[in-house]
């Protein structure tokens, strides 16, 4: 991983941290109180907005709108509103506050009429375009749901994709530690085997890749063990390998204070404690981020 990537990742992480802390405080994400801006921060801000918008909508009673409009001195029924001019709001306000006796331009009426005509034409065009897009989205959504319903494989692929994203996020996360698994000396068959264990900062989530192990003989399987500081090895499960196939294992639990990881060859189905020869072992942990 390059230094530049590390920097991006750290910046990325800091942004999320700050956002969530602000989020937890409740007030600071008010639009008026937000701090310095950046594209990444903006993206996370919009993500938070999406989270709020993802809740199932509830139609409020009409009385709420009536009370609101009474409070602001307007009608509860939305009157036609045209898109205001693009000038900053402050300028709009300033124009509205100008004395009524101010001389009006002789071009004002013709210009306003022209603008109104142009806007009406544009609105009509835009409405037609957007209505077409709405129909297309509805049709596509319906078709997608139909396809998904007919194809369980799509759901499986989504799950697989989510798992891959999880793994990628974990191995590139801040505070991740890695431990290299090396073959035990003396076995020529294992000379090209190796593994890398990634442990997330919470020391719970882990992801292990192994290459070069030979397929087990009939009635045997490989078994992964975590070795805590105190106590015996704890099984993390059994696995087999195909010829030349890379093995990927992951979980969100790991014994506390794990100091080493070992792969042994065991009877098929695994053992309560290591009984067979160790084939891979790692106990040197390195923090990479």
């Amino acid at each position: 991983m390059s230094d530049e990537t590390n920097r991006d990742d750290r910046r990325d992480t800091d942004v999320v941290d700050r956002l969530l802390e602000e989020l937890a405080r409740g007030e600071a994400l008010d639009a008026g109180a937000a701090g310095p801006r950046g594209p990444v921060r903006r993206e996370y801000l919009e993500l938070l907005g999406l989270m709020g918008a993802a809740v199932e909508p509830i139609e409020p009673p009409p009385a709420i709108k009536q009370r609101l409009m009474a409070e602001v001195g307007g009608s509860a029924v939305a009157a036609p509103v045209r898109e205001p001019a693009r000038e900053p709001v402050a300028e709009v306000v300033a124009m509205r506050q100008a004395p009524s006796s101010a001389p009006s331009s002789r071009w004002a009426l013709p210009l306003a009429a022209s603008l109104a005509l142009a806007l009406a034409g544009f609105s009509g065009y835009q409405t037609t375009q957007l209505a077409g897009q709405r129909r297309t989205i509805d049709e596509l959504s319906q078709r997608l749901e139909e396809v998904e319903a007919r194809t369980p494989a799509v759901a499986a692929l989504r799950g697989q994709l989510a798992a891959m994203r999880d793994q990628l996020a974990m191995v590139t996360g801040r505070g991740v530690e890695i431990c290299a698994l090396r073959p035990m000396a003396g076995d020529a068959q294992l000379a090209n085997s190796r593994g890398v264990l990634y442990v997330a900062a919470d020391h719970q989530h882990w992801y292990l890749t192994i290459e070069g192990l030979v397929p087990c003989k009939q009635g045997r399987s490989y078994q992964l063990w975590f070795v805590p500081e105190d106590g015996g090895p704890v099984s993390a499960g059994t696995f087999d390998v195909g010829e030349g196939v890379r093995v990927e294992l992951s979980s969100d639990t790991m014994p506390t204070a794990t100091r080493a990881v070992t792969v042994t060859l065991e009877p098929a189905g695994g053992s309560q404690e290591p009984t067979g020869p160790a084939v891979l072992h790692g106990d040197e942990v390195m923090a990479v981020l």
Partner: protein
Amino acid sequence: MPQDADLQAVPDPALVAAVGAGDAAALALLYDRFSGMLMGLAHRILGDASDAEEILQEAFLQVWNQARRYDPSRSSVSTWLVLITRSRAIDRLRSRKVKARTLLAVQQEKRGSHTSPEGVGDVFRQERGRRLRQEMALLPPEQREVLEMAFFRGMTQTEIADQAGIPLGTVKTRSLLAMRKLRKALSEEIEELL
């Protein structure tokens, strides 16, 4: 109706600008567009229809009074409104000291449906909402829970760690993983709001 169609064509930022200039009709239209979504959010946070209605009205009054402060370069209108409503609802939640209210009870409560006239913008908003719900559902439960506790219950990470009985570092890790995952998965939806 043509008139309704015209109204639907006014972009959200332009509508807020009109509200900032004192246009009550623009506020009414903004209300029509977003009240269902914001009512749903307030109800989700507070778990009480009466309180949610009050928050909704307060939020739109705040919009009326502060629309001039809205800066489209900082956030989309939708996000601005969500954060205003959320902030007020969380304040109310804290003042009631009912943090222990479970989300589950709220989620299981039967809700009404939003029946405001559906415009093109509504379709996009609903589609985005559907996508986010979909991606949230794909999150590992422990990551989703941490995000929901922070966003919908206004809990600090320390409070989440205490309540969930997990280390603070785990809370942070889960939050980060979840947020990163959602950001990547929803990059197109986020881009639409920028």
